[in-house]
């Protein structure tokens, strides 16, 4: 069986949709972060897969950038999450409704 770009793109799409699904349906904020990481990975996979057919390797470079940004994002997000938890004694996203009222 021939593995083509299409295959990677489909896998990436699956990752994206799965991450999105996790973001949408899980109540816990940490879980949501997991989903976001998953979606970022989907992007990375795309970049890497495209760069396989690109001599400049720009795809990989951007994937690395993306990983770095994702790491920084995760750190910041967790810091925010901890502060929220301190304030609201909850990590449930539904409880964060102050702006609603």
């Amino acid at each position: 069986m021939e593995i083509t770009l299409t295959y990677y793109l489909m896998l990436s799409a699956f990752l994206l949709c799965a991450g999105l699904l996790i973001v949408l349906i899980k109540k816990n904020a940490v879980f949501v972060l997991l989903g976001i990481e998953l979606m970022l990975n989907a992007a990375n996979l795309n970049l890497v897969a495209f760069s396989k057919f690109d001599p400049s390797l720009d795809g990989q470079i951007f994937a690395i950038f993306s990983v770095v940004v994702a790491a920084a994002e995760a750190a910041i997000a967790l810091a925010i999450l901890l502060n929220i938890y301190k304030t609201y004694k909850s990590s449930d996203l539904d409880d964060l409704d102050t702006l609603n009222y």
Partner: protein
Amino acid sequence: MSSWLIIGFTLVIVVPILYMIFTSNIIRAAYAFTLSLLGLAAIYVLLKAELMAVVQIMIYAGGVVVLLIFGIMLTRRQKGMELVTLHRDVALGAGFCMILYALFVSWIGESGLAFTEELVELNQVKTIGISFLTNHILSFEIIAFLLLVALVGAAFLAKKTDSI
């Protein structure tokens, strides 16, 4: 041979992700996530992107996941309590996501992006390093600055609340 490997690692990615979707336990989900990240790294290797695979393992599996697990432990309500999360809007979310996936699939299928010809082998790490400091120097600097800001910001946020 290699295609079977790819399919096998794909399963290593997909199955933990499905588990993540259906489970309520965050810790287990985090472990499953780690597994799927490792599977992804393997895919990268098979895609001849070794540097990317290394970065994936080091930063994601080593850094981000550990960070997340700390986050899970720190936000546990009380000792001994199950690390359980609840689901919401499952049907809607699943529906939308499946529709989206179907769209993507059909779109990808229609797009005709079906490259098969592979490039010649290169010294990837060297090429990437030169690119960083030449073509992509601005991006590199910005990423560095971003990391600094993120570091300071995270440290600041993680401080005691009353000092804000």
